[in-house]
């Protein structure tokens, strides 16, 4: 399926939950509402015409304008097509629905996005920090992150 067909199919099924799309990009993407992510993901995985069974990558992004984003790179082993999904939230209310129940691989990727960007994935089974120490404060990949002077009372040489 082409990106356009995927977009049309999602649009007819989910209506306003599918916000916008950029289909002429090098890797076409579709923006989905943060609170409909899971049902869209389930549909994309299970619909016989879609069968996006392989979540290549899940990345968190800070767009530096008050928005945080999650980017899902999907591909299908069966149909050999690809699509990029995006979800966005604001820094003050950084919630996105988890898709770890749909693709197991999302579990650790989402923990990483939570760890480094502070995106909270609702319904995630085990949302803990993954790369940083458990007592770390702040989210380093946010553009407004300041490197702390002290860590656990120790001066951080810089």
């Amino acid at each position, binding site marked *: 399926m082409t990106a356009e067909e995927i977009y049309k199919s999602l649009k007819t099924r989910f209506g306003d939950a599918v916000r916008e799309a950029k289909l002429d990009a090098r890797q076409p993407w579709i923006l989905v509402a943060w609170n409909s992510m899971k049902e869209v993901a389930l549909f994309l995985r299970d619909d016989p015409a879609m069968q996006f069974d*392989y979540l290549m990558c899940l990345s968190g992004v800070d767009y530096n304008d008050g928005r945080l984003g999650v980017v899902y790179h999907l591909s299908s082993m069966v149909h050999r097509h690809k699509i990029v999904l995006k979800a966005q939230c604001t820094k003050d209310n950084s919630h996105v629905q988890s898709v770890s129940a749909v693709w197991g691989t999302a579990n650790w990727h989402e923990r990483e996005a939570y760890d480094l960007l502070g995106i909270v994935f609702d319904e995630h089974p085990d949302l803990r920090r993954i790369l940083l*120490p458990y007592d770390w404060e702040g989210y380093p990949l946010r553009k407004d992150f300041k490197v702390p002077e002290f860590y656990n009372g120790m001066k951080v040489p810089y």
Partner: protein
Amino acid sequence: MIEAKTLPTSYVTQPGEIRTSSGKTLHTDEMIINMGPQHPSTHGVLRLEIVVDGEIIVDVIPHIGYLHRCFEKHAEHMTNYQQVLPYADRMDYVAAMNMEHGYALAVERMMKIEVPERVEYIRVIMAELQRIASHLIAVGTFGIDAGAFTPFLYAFHDREHILDLYEMTCGARLLYNYIWIGGVSHDLPPQFIDKAKEFCTYFKPRIKQFNDLLTFNEIFVKRCANVGVLPKDVAINYACSGPMLRASGVNWDLRRDDPYSVYNRFEWEPQVGKGEMGTVGDTWDRHIVRMREMEQSVRIIEQALAGIPVGNVQAAIPKRIRPEAGEIYARTETPRGELGYYVISDGSTTPFRVKARSPAFVNLSVLPEISRGAMIADLVLIAGSVDIVLGEVDR
């Protein structure tokens, strides 16, 4: 067909209880055991929190991040795109060429740079040599995990030849900074082609020797077969890649299925696990897939060496790499699987965001799924067969 390992059920009455041979009933409890972060069989600094019932694993909780060096943060704070390359090296320090290759490819696609044909051939040769070197470490250390020490020394001996080839080319043996955006740092030295051909001729019989020594060794087969079985659907759901995915019977290799560089010009076949000694997707399958991939890599190298054209080794690129605003996800097949770089550019000379989708990170996340119900001793083997490099898991 070797029988699956089963529990001595006669002693077990119900969960939480066990009957001794003299007829007494004892209460049992689950116990938490800590393995790592400093442990010879975790291949680096990985901590596994293991919940065990007797010797049976109930759950495994991996704790990672001990080697986190903020690759993504660093990438955003460099002064240009090229400076990220040496950091990419340090992610997977036993397959640094493949790491550079992936990043260079991502930026080149963003910039729409066409690299000279000679560069593509050099890159393929380097990447495949690196695959052999990396797989040699993987199978060597896997032998150690299974209790066989000698094959490890054989593997390292052979790997030394590849490192010599690298040293001859770019002066470095581990972290090369050789593949640059738009080309490679130097041309191959004049004697390289002959030496590399010599290596291929030398190495082919060594694979057979290694197989005789370890792979088809009766003790090794019994130790590995039917352990840590990763079913096909779980492998896909967890987005496993590389030998891990192929061992589970999925015929998927990015070099063929999402071709990059000049891989589509060579004749070779992706290797798939067939469950020859037990179940499809067990640790033995993962081992044999790596062994057979080395043969295929030699095939590719031989063809590339024979067909390498003369020419430039640097494309004409602008002095300042400044891709137009946009984003790209470029993926390549490294020895451990799919390495993806998601690069966002805002039109400036530094990347706005670089996310590295490292294969070992994703492959490791399936470890709890395939370890439940195994014995503690098998966990060492299962973790070894995943072939993690913690530098890349933690980035």
